[in-house]
């Protein structure tokens, strides 16, 4: 987010109540929209469980429509990524700033997560 972060009550703020997940065309992965926080923690963690069981070598989480992820959301992702076997990784496309910040603070250089912009 930057200085243009929407104020309370705008549609973007209210979108935080939920998390929508749609499959990506032509590659293994999903497009996630909404925000990753207390209200959506269970949905986010169950998505990550599904990713673990997909078995794809490279799995993409398209996160450009995710407004925010809290520390617990980043933790769930990092802990899940550490359970991947050595040939597998998760690609995060355009993750929110908070998610990058938390991953850099606690899991710098985590092999199983790749960030693209």
């Amino acid at each position: 987010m930057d200085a243009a972060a929407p104020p309370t009550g705008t549609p973007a703020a209210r979108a935080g109540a939920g998390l929508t997940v749609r499959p990506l065309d032509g590659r293994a992965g999903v497009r996630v929209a909404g925000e990753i926080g207390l209200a959506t923690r269970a949905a986010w963690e169950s998505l990550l469980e599904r990713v673990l069981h997909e078995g794809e070598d490279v799995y993409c989480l398209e996160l450009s429509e995710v407004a925010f992820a809290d520390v617990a959301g980043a933790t769930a992702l990092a802990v899940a990524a550490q359970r991947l076997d050595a040939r597998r990784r998760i690609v995060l496309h355009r993750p929110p700033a908070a998610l990058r910040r938390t991953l850099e603070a606690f899991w710098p250089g985590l092999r199983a997560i790749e960030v693209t912009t």
Partner: protein
Amino acid sequence: MTDGTAAGPFLHPALFYAGEREYLAGTVPFVREGLAAGEPVAVAVPGANLRRIQEALGADADAVTCLDMERAGRNPGRIIPGVLRAFADAQPAGRVRIIGEPIWAGRTALEYPACVQHEALINAAFRGRPVTILCPYDARALDEHVLADAYATHPTVIDAAGESDSAEYAPERIVARYNEPLPPAPGAASFAFKATTLPDARYFATGRAAGLGLAGARLDDLALVTAELTTNSVLHGGGTGVLRVWREGGQVVCEVRDTGRLRDPLAGRRPRAPDRRGGRGLLMVHLIADLVRVHAGGRGTTIRCYMGC
């Protein structure tokens, strides 16, 4: 160096120095003894003092992890997890040596309670571990009460006369005495939140902070700080709370007040193993804020985060 068994494995002396010569006489041999014994050594002191030590060490400085405490330890609550344990935990078994100077003459009255609580909490954070943390105090520049507090936060003190036990050592008393109430800031914008309005609380904080001059990555950091504090209130602090945002000098302040009781003074100061869930919210707050002040009261908890604009 002895194995420290007489005094317990954790050693935490204060070094009172008057002038550069005493500073170097108290720190440089400490570093060299550690290096000679094969111990990992870190020096985390204010920039000007760091350069003095590095210059005196010459080529030996290359074997030492050097950190500018004015940056790495600007928020005193960051020092245990982000500086001291970050270094000590990364070393193989055996004694580790650190020079940590968290209190200098430029520390403000706002920062000082967090500084002295940090010094007190080091004792609990490292109890039982084979670590030596030497804390220099500028006896000429620091106030009398700061030097008096150092006798309460350090079991031993070193001055020109040598090393002696501190009869005043009582770190828990310091943690309690500086657990000062934080009265509401007059005129601050406030937002009462609950579980279903956590995103709204965050947008409220970033919207206000942007209007007060916070921008760019610091605004993203404020979003994270707000989310972690408000989520903690919902999960552990009675389910609701009040968020306030205002500007103080060159900083935006974000405060969360709830009715929970924070009983663990080391909360947010323990690093977590990478594969462990939970326990990183307050830790992240300490790592990214410029200053965190906490009041843990009998009827509620107030946490105030200062973010430089």
